[in-house]
Each structure stands twice: as C-alpha cells, then as structure tokens.
C-alpha cells in the first residue's frame, strides 16, 4: 500500500505544477481566515438590513467551539483547487499514456487506481490537518477565554470535512478517468455542480425527499452552513449521520466506477 502511495508521490513531487497548485491552495486557505474579520463586518451590514443590530465583538464567530464549524464550512469551498490538481494528475497519465507504461512495467490496473486513491486520501488528510491548525490558531487568538470543554466540542466537523474533501476528490478522479482531457474535465467538474442544482430544482417539485441523495448535495450537506445562526438563530450545528452515510456511499461509488472504467478499457 505504502509502496503504491510512494510511486504516485514520486510522480507528483517532481512536478512543478503540483507545488504551485498546492501552494496556491494552502495560501488561499490561510488568507481566507485572515480576512475573516472583513467578512464579519459584511455579516453585520447584512444583519442591519434585516433590522438586526449586531456588535461585532460579541459575535462568537471565531470562538471555540463555533470556530470549528465556521472554518471547516468556509474551507470546504477551496477543495475545488485540490480537485484541479487531482484532475491534472490523472489526465496527464492518459495524455502522456504513462498509465499504459505503468501497467506494462508491472502495476495492475487496480494498483494503479489505488495509488491515485491513496494520494487523494493523503491530500484530504493534509487539508484537514491544515484547516485544524488554522482553526485552532484563530480560535486561540479570538476566544475571550479558552475552556477545554469548548475546545474538544464539535470536533466531528473535521471528520466530516475530511470526507467532504475526499468525496469530491474521488469524483474528480472518476471524471478525469472517464474524460481523460484536463481542460474538458475541469469545465465539467465545475459545471456538474450547476447541472445537479438544476436537476435538483426540478426534482424538488415532485419528490423532495430525494434531494439529500444527490451526490454534490450530499457532499455539501456534511457541514451545514453555520452563519444564519448569528442572524436568525435556528441551524443544524452537528454532523448528521445520514449525511455521512450518503456521502460515504457516493465516495465508494465514485471510486468503484473509476475501477470498472479502468478495468474495462484498453489503455
């Protein structure tokens, strides 16, 4: 297993684009939290238009345990950048035809896929750790008092965050494997969100209970949007088991379809 991961990492770590995209990713993640205060002020203005008066200093946006859900939620948007890297990595293998040579040299198609999936797991885990550190530091800076109870509360959002990123990277891997051209794959990756949203909007009128089962929807349901609570109060501030099960099932399906595709095709 570790051997397969090392093979894929060898391809990536000597690839300049990989470092640029990853650098960009972690830089953006950090920048977003740093500029979070500006966002807070925006929230206040929005609140004002609803006739609610808010004192910024009293919004516990960056306080434990709120900070966990808030930052994992916002960070979730940037997974697209990591997904671009995954797309580039897999479509390169097809445009250079190196997947063919890898198999000739003695990887099985299954092993080839596993090497890519392991990288996805590693990227998701690294992203999770990074987001944890960012959230921890911000929490320590902004929380008026740091209580251990608050600190260890709601940590399941990180497990949900990991699954969110991994599920999306799995989708990107599958799409890249099917389409095999990086540009087109990236366009479709972005479009797929919109396409699904359009389908959902139509389905919603007839079978609303089906909505949470849509793949992109299930991924975004893992960490519910926390902000309305500072204006309207009522939100879901926990990770729902059903969301985890549905997103987990999709993750499995994405990777399994990728396996079937690779197994069936001439490379």
């Amino acid at each position: 297993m570790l051997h397969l991961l090392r093979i894929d990492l060898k391809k990536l770590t000597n690839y300049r684009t990989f470092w640029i995209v990853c650098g960009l990713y972690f830089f953006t993640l950090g920048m977003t939290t740093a500029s979070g205060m500006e966002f807070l002020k925006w929230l206040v203005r929005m609140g004002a238009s609803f006739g609610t008066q808010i004192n910024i200093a009293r919004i516990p946006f960056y306080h434990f345990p709120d900070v966990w859900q808030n930052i994992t939620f916002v960070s979730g948007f940037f997974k697209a950048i990591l997904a671009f890297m995954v797309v580039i990595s897999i479509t390169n293998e097809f445009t250079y035809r190196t997947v063919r040579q890898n198999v000739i040299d003695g990887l099985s198609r299954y092993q080839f896929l596993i090497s890519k999936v392991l990288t996805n797991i590693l990227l998701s885990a690294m992203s999770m750790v990074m987001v944890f550190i960012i959230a921890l530091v911000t929490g320590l800076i902004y929380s008026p008092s740091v209580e251990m109870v608050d600190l260890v509360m709601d940590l399941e959002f990180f497990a949900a965050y990991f699954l969110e990123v991994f599920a999306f990277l799995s989708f990107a891997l599958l799409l890249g494997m099917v389409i095999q051209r990086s540009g087109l794959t990236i366009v479709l990756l972005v479009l797929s969100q919109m396409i699904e949203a359009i389908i959902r909007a139509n389905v919603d009128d007839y079978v609303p209970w089906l909505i949470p089962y849509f793949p992109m929807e299930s991924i975004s349901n893992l960490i519910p949007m926390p902000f309305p609570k500072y204006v309207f109060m009522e939100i879901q501030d926990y990770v729902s088991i059903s969301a985890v099960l549905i997103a987990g099932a999709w993750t499995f399906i994405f990777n399994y379809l990728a396996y079937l595709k690779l197994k069936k095709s001439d490379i």
Partner: protein
Amino acid sequence: MEAVLQIENLTKNFGRLCAVNKMNLEVGKGQVFGMLGPNGSGKTTTLGMLMSVVNPSSGGFKWFGQESTNDTRKKIGAVLEHPIFYPYLTGQKNLELTAMIKGATADQITSVLKLVELSDRKDDKYKTYSLGMKQRLAIASALLNDPQVLILDEPTNGLDPMGISEIRELIKKIASDGRTIILASHLLDEVQKVCTHFAVLKKGNMVYSGPVEDVNKGPEIVEVNADVDLSEVLNTFQGASAINRENGYFEVTLTKGIKGHDLNKFLFEKGITATHLVTKKRSLEKQFLEILAESK
C-alpha cells in the same frame, strides 16, 4: 523446447474491425522471435494484449506456463510502439519510477544507463531528449530488473546507424544469455540478422511461422550475365523454373536439385562464358513478400 509464451486463439476486435484473429503461437525459451507484417496487421495489438494493456476479445495466453499477472510482467521488459515517459521528469527519475514499479535496484539504473550511453544526459528532462535518446531510454527501462523476456516493437525506429547496430549487438548478447526476445520490426534485414524464428501477420491473421534458417531451404537463385544476350539460351535450360531480368542481370530460379555450377556447365557447353555468376542467398525480405502475396 520449454515454452515461454503460449498463445491460444487470441482475438481482438475493435468494433467491426478484427485486429487479431484467432492467433495460435508458441515462443520457446531462448528464441529471438520476429513478428513481421505490414502496417496495421496487428503486431502492436498482439503485444499489447500480451502485456495486458489491451483486453482480448477472446482467447488467451500463458507466460512461463501460467496465467499472466502483474508480477509476471515485472519479469518482462517491453517497449510498445514508442517510448512512454513522464516528460517533466529527468531520464534518471523516470527510470527510478520504473525501478520502483518493477522492484529493481538503484545500481541497475546506473548500469542500464551506461549500456545505452545516456549516463551524461540522465539529469536532463525527458522532454529535452532527441528521438534516438528517447528510444535508448526506453530500451534502458525495458532492461531494468534483469528481464527473462524482452519485447521490442520497432526498437530501432529513430536510431542512427551506429545505434541500430548497437541494438543488434545488444539483442544478440541478451539472447546468448538464454533469454527470449520478441521483436516486431519492418527492417527485415535486421530481423534476418538477429532472429531465430519469425511469424508473418496479415490483417490480423497469422499466415506463416517458422525458423529463419528455413528461408534458405527454398530453391536456389542464380544471378548470371555474359557478353552476349542470354535470354534465348536460358530458355532452353531445363533446370530453370523461372527467369527474370533484374538490375541488368538474369535471375534464374533453379529447380530442385539443380545447382549454380550446373548452369555454368550448361552455358560453357553452349560456348558461352559467363562474366557474372552468383548464387544468391535468399533474403527474408523476398520470402516475406512471397508469403504475403501467396496468402491472398
């Protein structure tokens, strides 16, 4: 003979096109096996199936008497069609990657690089290599992990004449260690020089297979000329089965049992002295063209 490779009814269809049709073939240990055939006859497709990158439509094959797995392929070095590497990696790094997959050691990398004379360019990116250098790197990579079988598809494509003769020597050297080589090539001269056996494919069908030495077993061909016009005299020669004019000579195909000196004696008795009389070695090229023509 110990069979390294057994192919049974191997078939590949691309939609309606049948690229390889019910192929049966056996390659023995230590053979240098030439796969010949015109463009599109199915050579690369066959080799692709043997290396599990093309899924057969039906039929199968065995390497070393067993069903093929990915571990089997680690003992086979193969370059199909053209070199494939990561363009952004250096030659050295590309080989390190192959070595990781095959389970070869680092000092093998050094030695194969030396063998193909790429040592001083190993730290340059693959994409900066010339065609011949890419080809050499591909051969180096196929030689990693001390393969029992070497599969080369047009290995000399893009090489300079020195490179071609080096590859020829390399093939001979590897074969003399008792290892098996399967070679697809259009350079019939080269094939005749290095191969022990060959097969001819035509539109997916294997139309011939046998040892290269059989090529010389056919009827003798004699090239002859004299100061006088020979065309009428030769027509009266009983031992000729065919007479052609080629390159300013008469090319006489002799019937069975008749030798060049019989023709010489015949001419002498007719009072003609030949100025040119050569018994020609039959070329694989000629045989190849005949096989293709016959199999219409």
